[in-house]
C-alpha cells in the first residue's frame, strides 16, 4: 500500500514510453532501465562498485560521527571551544561541500583520501549541530540529580550529557547518512576509477542513459534501505526513547 504512489509513477513512465510520448533520447523506458539494472546485477559489476563506494562513504561517515559527537558535546560544555569553533562552522555550513573537492584534490591527491575527507566534512556538520543542541538542552535537573548522586563534574559528560543528547544526535546522524551518499557520488564524478558515482558519470558520458539511470535507481534503493535499517536499529537500541517517527 505504501508503495502504491511509486507503482503509479513507474506505470505512467512505462506507458508514456510505450505510447511514444516520451522519446528515448529524453528518457529511456522503465523496462530498458530495469533490464540494464538486471545486466549490471547479473554480471556482478554493480556489486564491485557498490563495495568501493561504501568503503569511501563509510570511512567518511564514521570519522564524521565520532568527531562530530565529540566536538558538538565539548562545544556545548566549554564556552571557549564554542567561541573558537562556531564561526568556522557557520562559515562552512552554507558552502556546497562538493565544490571543495577540487581544492581537496590539490591538497590531498586525487585518490581516496580527498574523497573521504570531503565526505567526512559534509557529514560532520549535521552531527556537530545535533550533538551541540542535544548537549546544550540537557535539563539542569538531570545534571543536578547526577551530581547529588556522586557523579563528578567531568564524569557528567559521559554519564549524563551524552546519553541525554542521544535522541537528537541520532537525528543528526540520520541526516549525515543521506549527505554521505550525495557527496560520495559527487566526489566520484571527478577522477575515480571505481564507485557508483564513477559508473553514473561514465555511462552518462557515453550516452548509455538506461544504464546510468539503473545505477541512480540502485543508489536510491540502497539509500532508502540504509535509512530504514538505521531507524529500525535505533528503535531497538534506544527503546527507552519515544521516537516521533
Amino acid at each position, binding site marked *: 500500500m505504501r508503495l502504491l504512489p511509486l507503482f503509479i509513477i513507474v506505470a505512467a513512465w512505462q506507458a508514456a514510453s510505450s505510447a511514444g510520448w516520451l522519446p528515448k533520447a529524453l528518457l529511456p523506458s522503465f523496462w530498458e532501465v530495469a533490464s540494464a539494472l538486471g545486466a549490471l546485477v547479473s554480471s556482478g559489476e554493480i556489486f564491485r562498485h557498490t563495495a568501493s563506494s561504501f568503503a569511501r562513504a563509510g570511512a567518511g561517515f564514521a570519522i564524521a560521527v565520532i568527531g562530530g559527537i565529540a566536538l558538538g558535546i565539548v562545544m556545548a560544555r566549554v564556552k571557549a571551544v564554542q567561541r573558537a569553533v562556531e564561526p568556522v562552522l557557520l562559515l562552512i555550513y552554507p558552502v556546497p561541500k562538493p565544490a571543495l573537492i577540487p581544492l581537496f584534490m590539490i591538497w590531498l591527491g586525487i585518490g581516496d583520501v580527498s574523497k573521504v575527507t570531503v565526505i567526512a566534512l559534509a557529514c560532520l556538520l549535521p552531527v556537530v549541530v545535533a550533538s551541540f543542541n542535544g548537549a546544550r538542552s540537557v535539563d539542569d*535537573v*538531570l545534571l543536578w540529580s547526577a551530581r*547529588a548522586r*556522586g557523579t563528578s563534574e567531568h564524569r557528567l559528560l559521559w554519564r549524563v550529557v551524552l546519553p541525554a543528547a542521544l535522541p537528537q544526535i541520532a537525528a543528526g546522524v540520520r541526516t549525515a547518512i543521506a549527505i554521505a551518499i550525495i557527496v560520495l557520488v559527487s566526489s566520484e564524478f571527478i577522477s575515480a576509477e571505481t564507485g557508483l558515482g564513477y559508473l553514473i558519470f561514465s555511462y552518462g558520458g557515453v550516452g548509455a542513459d538506461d544504464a546510468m539511470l539503473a545505477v541512480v535507481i540502485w543508489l536510491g534503493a540502497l539509500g532508502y534501505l540504509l535509512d530504514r535499517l538505521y531507524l529500525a536499529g535505533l528503535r531497538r537500541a*534506544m527503546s*527507552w*526513547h519515544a521516537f516521533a517517527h
Partner: protein
Amino acid sequence: MPDAYLELRAVAMQYGSGAQAVAALQAIDLAIEEREFVTIVGPSGCGKSTLLYLVGGFLRPTAGTLGLRGRPITGPGPDRGIVFQRYSLFPWLTVRGNIGYGLDEKAVPRRERDRIVDEHVRLVHLEGFEERYPRELSGGMQQRVALAQTLACQPDILLMDEPFGALDAQTRRILQDEVRRIWQRDRRTVLFVTHDVEEAVALGTRIVVMSARPGRVKQIFTRGFDVAVGDEFEANPAFTDLKLRIWRSVKEEVDAVRA
C-alpha cells in the same frame, strides 16, 4: 555555640546583577537538628526551592554560610540526596538502573548493589517494574523511583523539592504516607519544600513559613503531636487548628504580593 546538624547563617541569594538583580532570599538563619522532618512552606516565588538548591550545593549563595555536620557546603554531594518535582530520572536507565545509579558511581560491588537495589524496589512497592523505563511509568511511580534512587545513596539529609506537586490528590496522599513510613523507620533528616499547607503539617515536625520575595524565615511552628501512617488527620482538631494558623500566616504573604 555548637553547630546544628544543618546550619544556615545570614544566607542571601540574588539572581542577576545591576538593575536586573532580583533578591530571592534575604538574611536566612535556620538550624535543623539530626532526624528532624522540617517542611518549608510559602507563597510561590518566595525562594523556597532556591533555599533547597543552596543546601544541595547546586547554587552558591550571594552571602552567608551553609554547613552540614560542621562542614561548609561548597558543592553538590551524595551526602545530600534530592528528589525533584519531576523529570529527574535518567530516561535511558531502567527502574533498576536508576535506583542503582548512585551505587554505581560509588563502585559498590555488584552483589551488594543488587541487594540494595532490590531492597529499595520493595521499599517503594515497585516489584515487577524493575526493567521498565521511566517513560513507561505513571507520574506517581516515577516519583517512587526518584525517592528510592535518593534513599539508596544513604544520604545524611533528604532534600525534597515539591516532590508530589505534580501528582493528583490521591496519589499525593499515598506517597505522603510512604514518606512518613520511611521517615519513621529510619529517621533520616528531611528538608521538604511544598506550597501545600496541609502537606507541610501532615509531614513536618517543624514547619517553616517563608515570607514573600525576598524570602525570609517568617515564622516557625512546631507540631506538638504525632501523625501516624494512615492517620485521618483531618479528624484531629489539633491538626486542623495548626493548619489554620499556618495558612493564615502564609495568606498574609500571598496578600502582600497581590497588594
